[in-house]
C-alpha cells in the first residue's frame, strides 16, 4: 500500500477512532476474523499458538492441543488409557525445533510429538531423580544453538516452582538450574529468548538472567531504582529478540523495555495516552511481524480498561481492542499469543475470544454502516447515491436522509426532511445527487427535486403539482444529469424523462408521457450517463432498453434487448452505463439479469459477458465504475468484481468476507470520485475504496497430503508420515485410491483452489486437473504400475503455488502379470508343446510300424490261409466232382490272383504314404533337435528373439505332424480297402453308394496300374440320380474290377493304327427306374465275334498261357446272376468293347453266391 500522506493520516485518525469508547462507525483497516469453539476449537481460551514448518497451525488451550489446517481441527487431548497421548490438556507453550520436531509444554509435563506415529513422548519430573525435569510445570520453551531444549518452569499458584531444565534430546541428559541460591526455592521462569550470538536470556520473577555459553554461567540483570538505565522492573513475563538484535522485555506492571545487549542501553516504554503509548504496563505477549512492526499484548488486571493489542511502528503504539458492537474487532479477553503465519496472516489468541486473525496482505475494503448508539454515524444502511464535495467530504444519499460525510473526522452530518420547514429536504428518501455550479447540488428524492445551496444550507424544492407546468412530474426521481453548457437539468423518473431549463425553471416533459412511448424504449428511466469523450450524447438506461439522445439535435437512438441474439443487448432492464477512457468507441452497459454488455458505437453491435461465457459470477449488475488501469469494477449479486475487458476469464471477486457491504447493492448507487476512488452503496451501508490499493497475495498455500483412502477405506497415517514416506505401495486389487489434501493458507481457506496430476512413470506426464475448492482427488481402477501424484494449490486470489506436493505410488501387478511368471509360463508352454509333439510323432511312428507289421502280418496270414485252404480243399473236395473241385480251386485262384494283384498294387502304393510318414517323422525329429538347441541357447537372449526362432520351427513341426497323420490315414485307407477285398465276395446285400464303390474300384485299378505299371485313363460318366443301391458290395466291386482289368489289358496290348490314340476306359452308370446299369467301355481292339460267344465260359481266355486264369468273366457272370441281374458284352473289332451290367436296385436275397 502506498504510504501517501492522506492515507497515513487516514490510518492514524481511523486508529484514533477505535479508541473512543463510543466506537466508530467506520471500520478501520484492521479487520479481524475469528475462530472459536464455533469452528471447532476446543476452547475459547488460547494460551499458545505456533505455525509449524509444514504449515499447520497449532493452538494450545487449557483443554487440549488443536491442529488447524484451515478447514478442520485435529484435537490432541490427554487420554488416561493411552500412554502415547499428550501428558496434560493444559497447554502452556509450543516450540518447533530446528529439526522440525514439535515440543509441547503443559501444566503437567513436557511432550515431544512424533508425527509419524501420532504419539507424544512425555518428560516428567521425578522428585528423587536428579536427571529428570525440575518440575512438571512448563511455562516457556526454547532451543539453544547446540540443539538442547531449555524448559522454563513456573506455577501461577505456587511461587516456589521455578528454574530451568536443559534437556539434550539425543542423549536424554537433563541438567537442572533452579537459578536460586537459597535452598531449594527455585525462581519462577516465564520467558526464554535466544540471540544470534547464542546467548540465552531467561526472564524470571526476579530479574533477567543472561546465560553465557562460553563459561556456562548465568549473570543477572535487575531493576536498580538508582539507575535509570537499569531494567524497569524485576518481574519479567515476556521476552523477544527483534530483527535488529534488541531484546524487548515485558514486565508485569512496569511496561516494556527495549534493551540493547551490546551497548547495555535500555529504553523504557511505560503506559501513556492511548494511541501514543501502551495502555497498560502488564505485558502478556510480544511478537514482531515480518514488516518489522512490533505487536504487544497488554492486560488490565484492575479492569479499568479492556485488554489491548498494540502495534508499535517505533513511533507510537496503535491500539486494537475488543468492541462488542463490532464483530470485526479483536476477540475479547487478554492477548496471550501472537503468531504471524507464512502467508502474513496475523493470529492473535486471547483468553476469552479464541483466535482473531487478520490478513495483513489483503486489506479489507473500507465499509461504512450504521452502528447503534452512534449518532454521528451513517443514518441508514440503504445508500443510493454519492457526490464528492471535496477531498475530505462526500455526500451520501440514503433512504433516511442526506448525509455529509467528513472523511477526516469520520463524522456524518444528517440532513432530513422536516415537516413545517419548507427549505428542508423534500423527502428523506434521496435517490440522486448531482453538482451544480460551485456551490449547489441537485438532490433528487422519491418525492420531489431539491436544489441545495451549501452557503445557506437550504434546500429549494421543486415539487409536483398537478396541472402545473413548472413542476416535476409525479413519481420518484431516479436519475439526474446536469448539462452545464446548456444550463439544463435532465431528470429521469419513473414516468419518463424531463428536461428543466434551470434559468427559467421551465420543465419540459421531453418524452415522458406514458402514452407516447414510440420514441423512447421505455418511460421507466433507470439511469443517465454522459462520457467525457462524448459530452453531447446522453445515454438513457430504462427498464426496457438503452437509448441515446443527441443533446444538440435531439435525435434518439434506441437499443432494444434481445436475449437470443448475441449481438443485441442481453437484457431489457438496463442498470448501469459507463465508458472506459481507453476504449472510447464503446459503451459498457450493465443489466439486471443479462450480465455485462459492450456496445460498439461503430457497428452498433453488442458483445455480452455473462456467467456462462466469462468469469463473471452473477448476471445481476447494480453498478459499474472504471478505474485508471482500464478495469471495470462491477457490483454484482455475487460480489464485487474487478473485470478486465481484455481477459474476461481473469476476474477478481471480492465478497462480504473482504469487506463488501453485502451482495445486494442499489441500482445506480455507484460513483467515481475525481481522484479515482470508487463508492458503492447497497442495503448494508456503503464501500469506498481506492482500486490501486488491491494486491494479490503472493503467498501461495503449502500443500500437505493429509491422508489417502484405498477402496474407500481411510489409511491411518499422519500427514507428516505420508509426506516423508518414500512411496505408497499397493497390491493390484487395491486400485481405487482417493487422496485428501489441504493447502495451508489461512487468509480465506474456503477459497483456496486445487489442481492435481497423476503421472504414470512409463508414460508422458498428464494434464493438470482443476478441482476447484475440492480437497479430494479420486482415481478408480488404476492399472499396475508406478505413479507420481502431484498437487498444487492456489490462494484465494488465484495465485498458484509453484512447488507441488507429490507422493509416489506403486501398484503391484498381480502375480499372473509379472514378467517372471510370464516367462515361466511361456517356457513351460513351449516345453509342453515340444513334449506333446514328440510324443505324437513317436505314437504315429509306432502306429505306422504297427500298420506295416499288420500289412506284413496279413499278407503272411493270407498266404497261410491260401495254403491251408488249398490243402483243405484238396482233402475235402477230392471225392466230389472233379470239375467242381477244379472249378472251386480255380475260382479261388482267380480271387487270389486278383487279390494278389491288388495286394501287390496296394503294397506298392502304400510306399508313397509311408515315404511321407517316414520322411516327415524324420524331419520332425531333426526339427525337435533344433528346437532343443534353440532353447538351450535361449537363456541369454530376449524372449522375443527366442520366440522368433521357435515359431517357424513349431510351425513346421505342426505341419509335419499333420502330414504324417494325413498319409498315415491314407495308408490306413488303402489297407482297409485291401482288407475289404480279402474278406471275399459273400455277404448280404446292403445299401451301398454305387458311385463311391465304383470310385474305389477305379482307384484300385489306377494305383495298381492294371499290374503293368502303365497308367490308365478312366473316365467316369455317372448318372447322379442313382443313389444307394442294395447289393453285396465286394461282389459287385469284384465284377467291376475284373471288367476294368480286362479293359486295361485290352488297351495295353493294343497297338492302335491311329496316330493320336488315347487309350480310354469309360465307366458309366444309368438309372433304369427299378434297375440300374453299369457300363464298362473301352476303345481298345474290340472283341471278334468268335471270341465274344465264349466270353463268359469258364476258363476261356485270350491271354497267353500262364497269364490269367480265364475265370474272371465267368465269375462275374455268376455274381451278376445271383444278384438277379444281367451282364452282356458288345464289341466290334477296332471299335472298342463295352460290358453292360443291369441290376435291380434292391436285391432281397442272393442265390447261390459262390
Amino acid at each position, binding site marked *: 500500500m502506498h504510504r501517501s500522506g492522506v492515507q497515513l493520516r487516514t490510518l492514524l485518525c481511523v486508529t484514533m477512532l477505535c479508541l473512543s469508547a463510543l466506537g466508530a462507525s467506520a471500520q478501520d483497516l484492521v479487520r479481524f476474523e475469528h475462530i472459536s469453539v464455533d469452528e471447532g476449537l476446543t476452547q475459547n481460551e488460547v494460551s499458545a499458538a505456533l505455525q509449524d514448518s509444514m504449515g499447520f497451525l497449532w493452538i494450545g488451550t487449557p483443554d487440549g492441543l488443536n491442529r488447524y489446517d484451515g478447514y478442520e481441527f485435529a484435537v490432541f487431548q490427554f487420554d488416561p488409557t493411552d500412554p502415547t497421548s499428550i501428558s496434560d490438556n493444559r497447554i502452556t507453550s509450543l516450540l518447533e525445533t530446528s529439526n522440525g520436531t514439535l515440543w509441547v509444554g503443559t501444566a503437567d509435563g513436557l511432550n515431544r510429538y512424533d508425527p509419524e506415529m501420532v504419539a507424544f513422548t512425555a518428560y516428567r519430573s521425578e522428585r528423587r531423580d536428579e536427571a529428570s525435569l525440575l518440575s512438571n510445570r512448563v511455562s516457556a520453551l526454547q532451543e539453544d544453538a547446540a540443539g538442547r531444549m531449555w524448559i522454563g518452569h513456573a506455577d501461577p499458584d505456587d511461587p516456589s516452582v521455578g528454574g530451568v531444565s536443559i534437556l539434550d534430546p539425543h542423549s536424554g541428559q537433563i541438567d537442572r538450574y533452579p537459578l536460586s541460591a537459597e535452598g531449594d526455592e527455585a525462581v519462577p521462569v516465564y520467558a526464554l529468548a535466544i540471540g544470534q550470538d547464542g546467548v540465552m536470556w531467561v526472564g524470571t520473577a526476579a530479574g533477567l538472567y543472561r546465560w553465557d555459553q562460553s563459561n556456562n554461567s548465568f549473570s543477572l540483570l535487575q531493576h536498580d531504582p538508582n539507575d535509570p538505565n537499569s531494567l524497569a522492573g524485576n518481574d519479567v513475563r515476556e521476552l523477544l529478540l527483534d530483527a535488529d538484535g534488541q531484546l524487548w522485555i515485558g514486565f508485569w506492571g512496569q511496561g516494556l523495555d527495549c534493551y540493547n545487549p551490546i551497548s547495555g542501553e535500555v529504553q523504557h516504554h511505560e503506559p501513556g495516552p492511548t494511541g501514543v503509548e501502551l495502555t497498560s504496563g502488564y505485558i502478556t505477549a510480544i511478537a514482531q511481524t515480518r514488516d518489522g512492526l512490533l505487536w504487544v499484548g497488554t492486560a488490565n488486571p484492575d479492569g479499568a480498561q479492556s485488554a489491548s493489542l498494540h502495534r508499535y511502528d517505533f513511533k507510537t503504539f496503535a491500539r486494537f481492542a475488543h468492541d462488542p458492537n463490532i464483530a470485526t474487532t479483536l476477540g475479547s479477553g487478554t492477548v496471550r499469543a501472537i503468531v504471524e503465519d507464512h502467508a502474513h496472516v496475523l493470529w492473535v489468541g486471547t483468553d476469552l475470544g479464541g483466535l482473531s486473525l487478520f490478513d495483513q496482505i489483503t486489506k479489507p475494503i473500507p465499509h461504512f454502516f450504521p452502528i447503534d448508539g452512534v449518532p454521528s454515524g451513517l443514518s441508514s444502511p440503504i445508500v443510493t447515491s454519492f457526490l464528492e464535495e471535496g477531498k475530505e467530504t462526500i455526500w451520501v444519499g440514503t433512504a433516511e436522509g442526506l448525509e455529509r460525510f467528513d472523511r477526516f473526522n469520520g463524522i456524518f452530518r444528517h440532513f432530513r426532511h422536516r415537516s413545517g420547514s419548507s427549505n428542508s429536504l423534500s423527502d428523506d428518501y434521496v435517490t440522486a445527487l448531482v453538482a451544480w455550479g460551485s456551490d449547489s447540488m441537485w438532490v433528487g428524492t422519491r418525492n420531489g427535486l431539491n436544489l441545495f445551496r451549501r452557503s445557506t444550507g437550504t434546500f429549494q424544492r421543486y415539487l409536483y403539482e398537478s396541472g402545473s407546468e413548472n413542476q416535476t412530474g409525479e413519481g420518484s426521481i431516479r436519475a439526474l444529469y446536469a448539462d452545464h453548457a446548456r444550463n439544463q437539468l435532465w431528470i429521469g423518473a419513473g414516468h419518463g424523462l424531463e428536461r428543466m431549463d434551470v434559468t427559467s425553471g421551465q420543465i419540459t416533459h421531453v418524452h415522458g408521457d406514458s402514452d407516447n412511448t414510440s420514441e423512447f424504449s421505455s418511460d421507466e428511466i433507470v439511469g443517465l450517463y454522459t462520457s467525457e469523450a462524448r459530452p453531447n450524447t446522453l445515454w438513457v438506461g430504462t427498464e426496457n432498453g438503452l437509448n441515446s439522445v443527441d443533446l444538440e439535435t435531439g435525435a434518439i437512438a434506441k437499443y432494444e434487448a434481445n436475449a437470443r441474439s448475441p449481438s443485441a443487448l442481453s437484457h431489457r432492464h438496463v442498470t448501469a452505463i459507463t465508458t472506459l477512457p481507453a476504449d472510447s468507441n464503446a459503451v459498457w452497459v450493465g443489466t439486471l439479469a443479462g450480465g455485462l454488455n459492450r456496445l460498439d458505437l461503430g457497428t452498433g453491435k453488442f458483445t455480452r459477458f455473462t456467467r456462462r461465457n466469462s468469469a463473471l459470477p452473477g448476471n445481476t449488475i447494480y453498478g459499474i465504475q472504471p478505474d485508471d488501469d482500464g478495469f471495470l469494477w462491477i457490483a454484482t449479486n455475487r460480489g464485487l468484481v474487478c473485470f478486465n475487458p481484455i481477459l474476461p476469464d481473469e476476474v477478481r471477486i471480492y465478497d462480504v468476507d473482504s469487506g463488501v457491504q453485502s451482495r445486494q447493492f442499489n441500482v445506480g448507487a455507484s460513483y467515481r470520485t475525481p481522484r479515482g476512488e470508487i463508492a458503492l452503496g447497497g442495503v448494508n451501508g456503503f464501500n469506498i475504496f481506492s482500486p490501486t490499493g488491491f494486491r494479490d497475495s503472493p503467498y501461495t498455500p503449502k500443500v500437505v497430503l493429509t491422508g489417502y483412502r484405498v477402496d474407500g477405506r481411510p489409511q491411518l497415517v499422519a500427514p507428516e508420515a505420508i509426506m516423508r514416506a518414500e512411496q505408497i505401495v499397493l497390491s493390484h486389487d487395491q486400485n481405487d485410491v482417493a487422496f485428501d489434501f489441504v493447502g495451508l493458507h489461512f487468509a480465506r481457506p474456503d477459497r483456496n483452489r486445487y489442481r492435481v496430476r497423476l503421472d504414470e512413470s512409463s508414460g508422458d506426464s498428464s494434464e493438470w486437473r482443476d478441482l476447484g475448492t475440492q480437497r479430494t482427488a479420486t482415481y478408480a481402477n488404476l492399472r499396475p504400475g508406478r505413479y507420481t501424484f502431484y498437487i498444487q494449490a492456489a490462494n484465494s486470489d488465484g495465485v498458484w503455488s509453484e512447488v507441488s506436493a507429490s507422493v509416489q505410488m506403486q501398484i503391484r501387478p498381480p502375480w499372473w502379470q509379472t514378467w517372471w511368471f510370464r516367462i515361466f509360463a511361456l517356457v513351460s508352454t513351449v516345453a509342453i508343446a515340444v513334449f506333446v509333439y514328440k510324443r505324437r510323432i513317436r505314437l504315429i511312428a509306432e502306429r505306422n510300424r504297427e500298420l506295416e507289421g499288420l500289412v506284413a502280418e496279413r499278407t503272411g496270414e493270407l498266404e497261410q490261409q491260401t495254403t491251408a485252404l488249398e490243402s483243405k480243399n484238396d482233402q475235402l473236395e477230392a471225392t466230389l466232382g472233379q470239375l467242381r473241385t477244379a472249378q472251386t480251386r480255380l475260382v479261388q485262384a482267380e480271387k487270389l490272383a486278383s487279390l494278389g494283384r491288388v495286394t501287390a498294387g496296394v503294397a506298392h502304393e502304400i510306399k508313397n504314404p509311408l*515315404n511321407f510318414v517316414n520322411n*516327415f517323422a524324420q*524331419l520332425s525329429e531333426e526339427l525337435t533337435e533344433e528346437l532343443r538347441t534353440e532353447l538351450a541357447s535361449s537363456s541369454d537372449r530376449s524372449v522375443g528373439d527366442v520366440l522368433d526362432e521357435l515359431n517357424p520351427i513349431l510351425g513346421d513341426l505342426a*505341419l509335419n505332424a499333420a502330414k504324417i497323420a494325413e498319409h498315415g490315414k491314407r495308408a490306413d485307407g488303402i489297407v482297409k480297402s485291401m482288407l475289404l477285398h480279402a474278406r471275399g465276395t459273400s455277404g448280404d446285400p446292403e445299401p451301398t453308394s454305387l458311385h463311391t464303390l465304383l470310385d474305389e474300384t477305379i482307384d484300385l485299378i489306377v494305383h495298381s496300374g492294371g499290374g503293368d*505299371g502303365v497308367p490308365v*485313363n478312366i473316365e467316369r460318366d455317372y448318372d447322379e440320380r442313382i443313389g444307394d443301391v442294395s447289393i453285396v458290395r465286394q461282389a459287385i466291386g469284384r465284377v467291376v474290377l475284373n471288367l476294368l482289368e480286362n479293359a486295361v489289358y485290352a488297351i495295353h496290348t493294343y497297338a492302335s493304327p491311329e496316330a493320336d490314340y488315347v487309350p480310354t476306359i469309360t465307366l458309366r452308370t444309368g438309372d433304369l427306374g427299378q434297375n440300374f446299369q453299369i457300363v464298362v467301355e473301352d476303345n481298345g481292339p474290340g472283341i471278334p465275334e468268335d471270341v465274344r460267344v465264349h466270353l463268359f465260359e469258364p476258363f476261356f481266355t485270350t491271354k497267353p498261357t500262364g497269364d490269367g486264369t480265364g475265370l474272371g468273366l465267368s465269375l462275374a457272370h455268376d455274381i451278376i446272376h445271383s444278384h438277379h441281374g444281367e451282364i452282356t458284352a458288345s464289341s466290334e473289332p477296332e471299335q472298342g468293347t463295352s460290358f453292360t451290367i443291369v441290376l435291380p436296385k434292391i436285391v432281397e436275397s442272393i442265390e447261390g453266391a459262390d
Partner: protein
Amino acid sequence: MSEPLKALVVDDEPDVQLLFSQRFRRETRKGLVQLTFAQSGQEALDALKTEAADVVLVLSDINMPGMTGLELLREIKSDYPELRVMMVTAYDDATMQEEAFSHGAEGYLTKPIDFTELKRDVFALEA
C-alpha cells in the same frame, strides 16, 4: 559363394514339394540348392522352358496321370540331352528300372526316399 545346384522335382503328390522343401531347408538357406516343383509331366516341360530353365537335374516320379515319368524322361532327353534325370518312384521291379535306364535315366531311386542317400549321391552334399 558358388552357384546353387538347381533341380526340378516332378511328382503328382503335392506333399512331395513340402517334403523336399523341409528336407532341403538348410541347404536352401545356405544357397547350396535351389528347388523348383511341377506336378505333372506337362507342367515340368513348361517349367523347363521358363522358371526352371537353368536346372541341372530333374527328379521325377513314374506313376503320374497324363504323361508318365518315363514319357517325360523320353521328352527331356530328346530336348535337353545334357539334363540329368533321375526317377524317384515306388515301383521296385527290375523291368521298370531297365526301361528307365534304357531311356537315359541317370539314376533310379525307390520310395520311401532315403534323403541321406539322395543328398549324398545326387547332390554330392554332406548330408
